[in-house]
């Protein structure tokens, strides 16, 4: 997606969250997040949505089947689909849903963090990290845990706008910088 579309994506997502965002519960928010990931994997969908030769009814039907029927998103997303098709911008559905997920979480005071560690974390460690993040951000933290052996040892916690990392890899990178710059 070109960078000049980013403001447009944000505007659609902001408008949708302003109208329907208050009604989403946690389960629906999780479904929106999953749907965003699913759509990101369906690259062919975007190609077909950009084809002007395909009739709007077909596009509408395809999007409603994927988003509402299969991903289980609320019915309010039909209005979003109709709006995008009317504006001939249905190919922006993927980034818009991803943005809706992030905005809705933010509105509810929830921050999504990707937490990568060099080895598996036990429950106490996860709780400690979440408490640290909650203390720093004043938000409720939802963690997505993965293993990244490239860290060598340590943890990296990253959201859209914030980063905290304490790892051997970072330390070595800093040492390299201080030696060469």
């Amino acid at each position, binding site marked *: 997606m070109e960078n000049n579309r980013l403001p447009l994506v944000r505007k659609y997502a902001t408008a949708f969250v302003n109208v329907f965002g208050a009604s989403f519960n946690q389960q629906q928010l999780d479904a929106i997040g999953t749907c965003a990931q699913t759509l990101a994997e369906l690259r062919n969908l975007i190609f077909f949505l950009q084809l002007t030769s395909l009739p709007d009814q077909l596009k509408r039907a395809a999007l409603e089947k994927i988003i509402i029927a299969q991903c289980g998103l609320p019915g309010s997303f039909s209005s979003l689909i109709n709006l995008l098709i009317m504006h001939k911008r249905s190919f922006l559905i993927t980034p818009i849903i991803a943005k809706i997920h992030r905005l809705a979480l933010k509105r509810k005071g929830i921050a999504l963090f990707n937490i990568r560690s060099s080895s598996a974390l036990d429950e106490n460690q996860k709780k400690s990290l979440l408490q640290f993040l909650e203390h720093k951000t004043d938000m409720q933290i939802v963690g997505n845990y993965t293993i990244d052996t490239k860290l060598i040892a340590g943890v990296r916690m990253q959201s859209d706008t*914030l980063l*905290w990392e304490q790892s051997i890899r970072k330390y070595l990178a800093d040492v390299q910088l201080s030696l060469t710059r």
Partner: protein
Amino acid sequence: MEIKNIDLVSLFEQALQNRPQQKLDEIGIVVKVGDGICAVHGLSTAELGELVSFEGGNEGIIFNLDEDTVTIFLLHSTIVVAELEVAKRTGTVFKIPVGMGLVGRTINALGKPIDALGEVKADAYMPIEASAPQIIERSPVNESLETGIIAIDALVPIGKGQRELLIGNRNTGKTSITVDTILHQKGKNVFCIYVSIGQRQANVARLIRTLEENGALEYTVIVDADSSEAVLNQYLAPYVGCTIGEYFMNKGYDALVIYDDLSNHAIAFREMSLLMRRAPGREAFPGDVFYLHSRLLERAGKLAKGGSLTALPIVQIQSDDITSYIPTNLISITDGQVFLDTKLFNQGIRPAVNVELSVSRVGSAAQTAAIKKVTKALRLELAQYHDLLDFAQFGTELDEISQHKLARGALVIELLKQAPFATYSFQDQTLMLLLLKENVLDKLNKVDVVAFATQYTSYVKSVYPELYEIITDTQDLPQDIIPRLLECADEFSKIFVSPARMSNI
């Protein structure tokens, strides 16, 4: 990859003692990168001009804040920035080292030394953007900054704290004048900063060698952003030089900064603005190209509490056209200009100062009293000479007075010629111009004028040092010593041998 000589043990000790960071870094993600510029999504709280660091080791400066992205120019062209790389706010602006440790050093636009003489010992780190001194902090320009070039010191005098533009076609001697000015500051407690913008590396190397051979590097700082450097470095270089000069000025010293040249600086800024998709204006320059130079040059001045920063910006023109965009901008910003004429240069009149188009708005307030006394009618003589010269080309017969004026003018032109790297002190200039004023040179052949004048000054200095000292101490030419000086001239003329005759002996 060049590795600095740092004790690894102390680095590890430091790391062991450090506690884990307590703050979360504010980050953005690189969405587009290329041509030395990148767009970062996020960084919604970042500020304009803020320094940003990338995880890959590069750094950049924020130049644009858009709704969802910020535009960052990269500082290091050799460190790769990949798409989706994380960019962190540093919370600070770009700063450069300043202090006495920079004197005698050559640095790049990032403040790093490039002369292989080790690290620079900085007294402080200062941001490159700063506000100019306020009106109340300034003092009028009333002290001479001698260039050692008689054509400039006599006719277009420069004072400490003045901004004097050097303008001319390519290869008309603009850089040569600045080199002579730097060489002439030896022993005068003036720190010199030479900023090279978009020049050839060979030229810069030659200049550095010249300064080194003449002992001028001991009080000079070279800031180099040659034509192979990234466009951001060429943009930053003048501000870096100005910041270094400002440090000296604020410490009470006199400093001279030379920007060679600001036309390349404007071109670099134009390239940056076009890459940022800013609307192009006249000649494709952005609308704030005037502000680019005005905020730089306004930082020069003379402070009431002591200290001064004199600026000599250089601008290159095409085909002697001083009415084009950037030159006219700079002419309106500066306190005068020295126009170097290609025609004069090709005629062998060097320095090729076109006196009619050159002006110093500070004027005689920046001249020593001695020079002021002996240059009273000099400009008028030259103006009359040029008028008559045009007239004489028609081949008409001129009256005696006109012929005398033509001859006088030719003598003046001859006296104002000066070889490169051969500067005159104000005392020598006073004596030479006194000879001219009192018509002592009228009897000589044109080819002997410079030799006679320079040898006469040596004669007075060695045989009558008390007269020389009076001029030095008083910075004036007292009326009572003029007859004695003229007697010396008469005495000297009896023993003077023309160089042409000397070569025949």
